[in-house]
């Protein structure tokens, strides 16, 4: 599995998990489908960006920092659009970015350069 695919799969999976936990918040339960879809999409975008970064830059600290930054930024955008829940959205979002950042640096194959 390449770093980009790993980033997308892991970001997507953690995004689904992230979204599903909204079910435990009674106020958000009615909109759970939209939350899961949005959260999954956010995870996939974050995973894609972090995976591309991991393919270009071989550095665990930088990969983690970039993942954290992307995760926090995307989570901030969602919280901003929702006008609230910054802490509840940004903390898990940052963690997801951090985990994907770590995983894409540590695991995943570097895609072979295409031959001319």
């Amino acid at each position, binding site marked *: 599995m390449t770093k980009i695919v790993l980033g997308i799969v892991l970001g997507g999976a953690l995004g689904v*998990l992230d979204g599903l936990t909204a079910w435990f918040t009674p106020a958000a339960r009615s909109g759970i489908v939209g939350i899961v879809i949005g959260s999954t999409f956010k995870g996939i975008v974050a995973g894609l960006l972090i995976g591309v970064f991991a393919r270009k830059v071989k550095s665990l600290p930088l990969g983690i920092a970039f993942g954290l930054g992307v995760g926090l930024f995307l989570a901030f955008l969602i919280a901003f659009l929702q006008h609230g829940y910054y802490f509840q959205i940004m903390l898990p979002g940052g963690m997801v970015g951090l985990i994907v950042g*770590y995983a894409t640096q*540590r695991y995943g194959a570097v895609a072979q350069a295409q031959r001319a």
Partner: protein
Amino acid sequence: MRWLSDAVVSRLQSEADLPDLSGTRYRAVKSLGRGGMGMVWLAEDTVLRRRVALKILAPENSSADLAARLLREAQVLAQLEHPGIVPVHDAGTLADGRTFYCMKYVEGQTLDQYIARIPLRDRLQLLQRIAEPLAFAHSRGVVHRDLKPGNIMIGAFGEVLIMDWGLAKLTGSAPMERNSCSGHAANSEAALTLPTGHGSVLGTPGFMAPEQARGEVQAIDQRTDVFGLGALLNFMLTGAPSGNSAVPKALAAMSCKATASEKPARYQSLQEMAEDISKYLDGVPVSAYRENLLEQAIRLATRHQAAIVLVLAYLLMRLLFILFSRH
């Protein structure tokens, strides 16, 4: 009753050993040591203005057989051009009739001095690097036969050099240029073996494979060096060529496999052994040891420690959020 002091005796001894380098480009600087066959001198190459090491037959060992053996050692070494094998620059006969060869002067520490201050992981990586020049020598049909800590030098910049090829054996499948090595007896088995005294035992106890200890010259092949490398592994783990108490089970199994009495039970090549060391360092199962489920789980958990901690932290955070949202 003693007529001369120790210092005087020592001085006379060094004067007697002093090689006659007249007519050569070398100037003796100091004696570096004495082996079974000859002495090694630090010398200065007066033409290139660099320090070199001269291996010279000891005066008491100046028989034609030993001279031929030293020359053949130089010829074998000259064929093995590898960064991990000390290069030979020159060979010949001194004015006093003694045979010599000139090689690179290696400054550094022997393996036993060096490993005292490095951690296990670095020791294993060092062993992999020791295996490389030996595997190269095997590919050229040469078996070292005298692997021991004193014959491994670690240079000032961490470079590994395999020294003292005086017991080396050329195997029957050697692709080496035999004409340049064998001279007068190219087709005989004797020509394929450095004349170490057929049937006699030469080597270092503890680091010597059983077939070598039994003097079975015909039975010696690359697996003899596998045994030597296994004994070195043991030495690096425990400080002794055998015995593996308090050593990780996988490493103990690797060492046992490498030093098995029967050759078929050993690793069949140094590459195979180096591959197992590599696997151990990467945290994957080694061929020499079958893990049970618990050991597998521990190894996987150790290997992916950081990832597991991150995922657990994430799950814990999620759990806390759920608990707080209920309140």
